[in-house]
């Protein structure tokens, strides 16, 4: 853990007490030599010991694998040459350091760019659809309405069911030969659609399922946001003769901005990394049609044979690089709202 200088601590403490939430306001005087560490330790030992378990767990389970994953991505490790034990024989690792070859291979291969393109389509369409639906439904539920509690409970039901259970249910409904959807279509005289086996329909299906899973979170978050907008604003606007659309456009949307910014970012990250929906619904198929970056990297190391650990690690590092862009955007958004850490 990096140790900050006492100057910046003082700054942080000052900024903090300005917001009236400061606990530790006495500033450690600047000093040099061994006394400084001891003083810092005696001032901060309880804070440090409270965060120590988390730092330890994250360090061991994320720090080590991350460093090792990065190293693996620079080698030619696969199932055949890693350290392994067969029966009583212990076979040492024989993979070699190959520098940036894996990255070169991945980035010059169309597979990566194809998967990246689909991952972006997937993320943007899922987030846009679930956000819009959530916003519309939340606006409806925010009115005086008979049966509001019933609608609310029913609409957030998909959230209450574990995702993998829902996904299996959808597979039952999408079943090509005898699933309910195709039987209903047959009843209407329409040919069966191979929901999960046709590349285009498979893409539509996975997005539909993910939107179905994502709307409840959006809905509840938007409801919370709507309730925090003061009713006086609407009254004043109505007095001035603003139409419903104008009220929505100029009061509701700006009022929702803090909440909507956060949920859009969160759900973008979640959707980008959404493993179970695609893995369980289509296994990435047909072919690679619905494979997003995360499921493809998983496939490289656990599904294909021989397992390509180095390639998978290189994909992983590239995914992480993309996600750090998200992190920077998120941090910016937080700073705009005045979070000072």
């Amino acid at each position: 853990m990096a140790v900050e200088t006492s100057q910046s601590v003082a700054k942080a403490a000052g900024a903090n007490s300005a917001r009236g939430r400061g606990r530790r306001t006495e500033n450690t005087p600047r000093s040099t030599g061994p006394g400084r560490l001891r003083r810092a330790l005696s001032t901060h030992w309880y804070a440090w010991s409270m965060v120590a378990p988390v730092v330890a767990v994250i360090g061991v389970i994320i720090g080590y694998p991350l460093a090792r994953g990065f190293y693996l991505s620079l080698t030619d490790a696969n199932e055949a040459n890693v350290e392994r034990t067969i029966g009583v024989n212990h076979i040492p690792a024989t993979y070699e350091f190959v520098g940036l070859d894996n990255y070169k291979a991945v980035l010059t291969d169309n597979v990566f760019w194809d998967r990246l393109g689909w991952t972006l389509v997937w993320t943007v369409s899922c987030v846009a659809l679930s956000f819009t639906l959530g916003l519309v439904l939340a606006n409806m539920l925010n009115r005086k309405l008979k049966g509001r509690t019933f609608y609310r409970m029913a609409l957030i039901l998909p959230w209450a069911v574990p995702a993998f259970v829902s996904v299996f249910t959808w597979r039952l409904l999408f079943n090509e030969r005898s699933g309910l959807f195709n039987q209903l279509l047959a009843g209407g005289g329409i040919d069966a659609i191979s929901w999960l086996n046709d590349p285009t329909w498979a893409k539509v299906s996975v997005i539909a399922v993910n939107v179905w899973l994502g709307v409840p979170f959006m809905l509840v978050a938007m409801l919370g946001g709507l309730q925090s907008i003061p009713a006086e604003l609407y009254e004043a606007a109505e007095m001035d003769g603003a139409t419903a659309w104008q009220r929505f456009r100029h009061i509701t949307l700006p009022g929702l901005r803090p909440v909507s910014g956060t949920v859009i970012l969160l759900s973008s990250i979640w959707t980008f990394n959404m493993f179970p929906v695609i893995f369980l619904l289509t296994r990435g198929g047909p072919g690679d049609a619905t494979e997003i970056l995360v499921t493809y990297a998983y496939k490289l190391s656990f599904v294909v044979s021989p397992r390509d650990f180095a390639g998978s690690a290189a994909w992983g590092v590239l995914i992480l690089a993309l996600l750090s862009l998200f992190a920077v955007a998120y941090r910016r958004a937080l700073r705009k709202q005045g979070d000072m850490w």
Partner: protein
Amino acid sequence: MSTNTQSAPAPKVRARGERSPLASLGLHLTLLVATLTAVFPPLWLVITSFKPKTDAFDTSVVKNFTFGNYSHVLGDTQFLAWLGNSLVVVGITTVIGVFISATTGYAVSRFRFPGLRPLMWLLLITQMFPVAVLIVPLYNLLASLGMLNQPVGLVITYLTVAVPFCAWMMKGYFDGIPAEIDEAGRVDGLTPFGTFWRLIMPLAKPGLAVTAFYTFITGWGEVAYASAFMTGEENLTLAGGLQTFVNQYTADWGSLTAAAVLIAAPAAVVFGLVQRHLVSGLTAGATKS
């Protein structure tokens, strides 16, 4: 979508917020369609689970009502073993996860200490870690420590998934508790830990409930790590076990649906109890300054 149709032909004056009957109808119709879409798949799951295996794809609702799938799942499969595995893994994860995310959340909410900023970054970045980056090295690490197929391996893994987010949520809750309470505790001679444990923790109970629920659901519904780290039919967790009913070679939809209902029902009940607090908690950590 309905709007207030103020320009209706009849010059009747409506009170604020009052709708024309037509608008009301549209509102209710839209909501009903949405409700049906939301409720139908889980409902169909429940219905299918009560049909004999051979009727799994029958479109009629109740023809041959049976508990056969349930008795098959409970009696003849490893379902109870999977349930046990899941309960052990998720239970331990929840207890440890809630405790350490509470202490961390409290520390980052109340203290300004060197390392705070890197720690916040760490928590933020960890939240967006994709499974794919870690899973292979983690697999190797657990293998070399002999922790594959052991609940403890999954517990530690799930902690890293759930704790960063929960720490953010808890920070949001603690930020909402006035610092004067801490000060009063300190004046009365409590240590920082004493203040946290005896004054703040009881006040943060709703937050703790949400954190516990979130950790629980994370573990209960996790698929990737569980599929990779646990092998052998009796070592699987629920997510892994369910996959054995329907894979490339077999399709026992009867057992699958019954097992799925048994898995989803308790989670849905708990969800119903905590849902009021859920979103304030989920967004608090992120939106509150």
